[in-house]
């Protein structure tokens, strides 16, 4: 009896396995292995180029609390862009790389008189990469040095300041794609278990005067206005414990310190923490200094809000985690802390001052614009959540979105994008974004309330 049962179990197992195989279509089982791709990794030149075309519609709210000093044409209901993007890498000889990365944006706003078309070239990178010995690397030229492990805000990304020329997308990930690198010399030693990097980015333009945003200006007044240097190292202390420590210096200002850490938990959770600290001014002092230096503010301008003008030790930090689900959904949640930003009391003062003294509106808004150019949150705290859902709602579609929430007033910015991968070289997309909140809140006070766009991206 026992033997019969054993045989029955054996036959059932074999039959179950065969049944599973039978479910696989013949085409899969009999299909001959395809030839390796014609374009492999054995080439000395590679390039990636795409065209990105998007018309956009925007709804504007009538901002009464602190009106934004915008001309009528800035409030275009219809706008859009056509962009060409190229990244090329050439290896003329062993251990030598030449990298060029460039983007040309043509933006237009067609709702008002006169209609306008603006062209702007972003020369993002152009450098020679050398590998003189195993694990040693030297990069010379314009390099996009991006630091940090977080998704929505990177306190240790010291080279983000004023690096974005054209903002077509508020998504922090997209902004990293389009930003300018800085002219620098970068040396790095990488070994099994750690690395050390040192870089120097010299001042090449005057620190004074407004930014020159003419079409083909390389933008060195944005990226090489001051001499900056960075020293960083990482070391594996234990399995999955590889902290990264950074030391940043700018033209004799007090040094800034930074730390990056990541840790996985189980097979689907990743967490990270990013911190930077140092003696530095808050957003109000920085906006005032920049406004006076560039001539944007009259010489006698003083800080519009009460604040601590000392260069005290101030912290910035991000703590975040992502969770991947079996249905191809990945959720990310982050908390951002920026001790340089406005406190809830300063926000109340911002609105009160703007309503009481309309002459200050331009300066108050420039303060917010300046923080955005610096790549820093204007508020002291914010929450960031992101979702990426591959093959949703159907195959070849991807839904992604993020929100930034100001916990002090409950206002939020929300962006959703649905992409459809029409074929391996064409992506179609729809994007909608909205700023939500009342008129005396961080996000409810900005003039654009809702925008939507359709997008076609074609790779070559």
């Amino acid at each position, binding site marked *: 009896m026992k033997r019969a049962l054993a045989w029955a179990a054996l036959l059932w197992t*074999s039959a179950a396995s065969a049944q599973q195989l039978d479910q696989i279509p013949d085409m899969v089982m009999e299909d001959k292995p395809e030839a390796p791709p014609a374009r492999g*990794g054995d080439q000395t030149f590679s390039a990636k180029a795409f065209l990105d075309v998007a018309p956009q519609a925007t709804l504007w709210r009538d901002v009464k609390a602190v009106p934004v000093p915008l001309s009528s044409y800035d409030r275009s209901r219809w706008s859009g862009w056509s962009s060409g993007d190229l990244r090329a890498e050439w290896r003329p000889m062993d251990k030598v790389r030449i990298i060029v990365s460039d983007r040309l944006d043509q933006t237009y706003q067609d709702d008002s008189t006169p209609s306008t078309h603006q062209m702007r070239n972003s020369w993002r990178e152009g450098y020679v990469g050398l590998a003189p010995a195993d694990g040693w690397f030297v990069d010379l030229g314009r390099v996009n040095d991006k630091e940090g492990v977080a998704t929505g805000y990177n306190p240790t990304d010291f080279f983000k300041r004023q690096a974005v020329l054209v903002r077509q997308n508020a998504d922090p990930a997209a902004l990293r794609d389009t930003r300018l690198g800085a002219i620098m010399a970068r040396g790095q030693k990488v070994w099994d278990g750690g690395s050390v990097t040192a870089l120097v980015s010299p001042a090449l333009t005057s620190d004074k005067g407004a930014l020159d945003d003419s079409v083909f200006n390389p933008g060195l007044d944005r990226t090489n206005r001051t001499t900056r240097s960075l020293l960083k190292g990482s070391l594996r202390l234990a399995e999955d414990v590889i902290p990264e420590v950074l030391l940043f210096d700018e033209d004799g200002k007090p040094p800034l310190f930074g730390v990056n850490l990541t840790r*996985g938990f189980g097979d689907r959770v990743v967490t990270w923490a990013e911190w930077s600290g140092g003696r530095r001014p808050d957003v109000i002092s920085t906006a005032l200094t920049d406004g006076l230096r560039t001539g944007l503010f009259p010489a006698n301008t003083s800080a519009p809000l009460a604040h601590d003008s000392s260069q005290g030790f101030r912290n910035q930090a991000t703590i975040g985690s992502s969770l*991947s689900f079996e249905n191809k959904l990945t959720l990310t949640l982050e908390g951002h802390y920026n001790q340089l930003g406005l406190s809830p009391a300063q926000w109340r003062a911002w609105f009160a001052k703007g309503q009481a003294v309309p002459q200050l509106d331009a300066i108050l808004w420039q303060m917010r614009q300046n923080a955005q150019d610096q790549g820093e949150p204007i508020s002291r705290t914010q929450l960031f959540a992101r979702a990426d859902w591959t093959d949703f709602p159907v195959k070849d579609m991807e839904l992604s979105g993020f929100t930034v929430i100001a916990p002090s007033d409950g206002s939020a910015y929300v962006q959703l994008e649905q992409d459809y991968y029409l074929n391996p*070289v064409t992506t179609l997309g729809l994007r909608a974004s909205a700023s939500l909140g009342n008129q005396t809140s961080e996000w409810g006070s900005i003039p654009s309330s809702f925008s939507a766009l359709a997008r076609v991206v074609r790779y070559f």
Partner: protein
Amino acid sequence: MRKILLFCLLIWSLPAWAAERTAQEILAASDDIRNPDKPFSLTTTLTEYRNGKPADRMVLKVYSKNELKGGQFRTLIRFLEPERDRDKLMLKQGNTLWFYDPASKAGVRLSPQQRLLGQASNGDVVTVNLNRDYTAALSGEETITDGDHQSRDCFRLDLTASAEDVTYARIELWIDKTNDRPIKGKFYSDSGRMLKTAFYRRWEEQLGRIRPTETIILDGVDPNLVTRMQFSDYGWRDIPDSWFQRDYLPHFQGD
């Protein structure tokens, strides 16, 4: 006389006892078939089939090297297709996964369970020594049908994750009793849900051993969702240790 008999019995049973392998040793032998013992590279072509028709495709160049300590593999993956993902990189360093996009210069940490294409997740395309991350128990001996519709006498091993951050909490693995080849695997989430079934097939001599050059992955729920992983362009590679550091990714030059 009794002592002599006992002694003879002991001597007679010794070779059989010595030949008896533990489940962990069987798993290690199976790992050796899937994974070459020296640094190597290969091309992995993933094709996703929906209702029997090819729906999507991804081509990856895979570089793998065994760690000196611990015995786990480190893997660097370069995306060759589709065009929108070309030249992006994925690094497995220990059990951590990093994704690097040359466009944004951003390194993003990923979880092994995050899906790559079809039924294949990130953890499926990197080289893994199961013996290092799982505790194996022999749960039976069965005859099953392999990926080429042949009957195979197999050990059935129950693998339980012994390390954090591994792609699957539990695996059932059928290994051919005669040659230690992995024939079939069932992969489970930490909630106990069966995620996928894999059949190893198209056995060919590659890098000095007969190895599977194809894995068919069936979705745990919908049998119409099938992903095929094909391995080609095998080659021994002299890969520096520095390649497997996150900070190396911006300098990657490929071959």
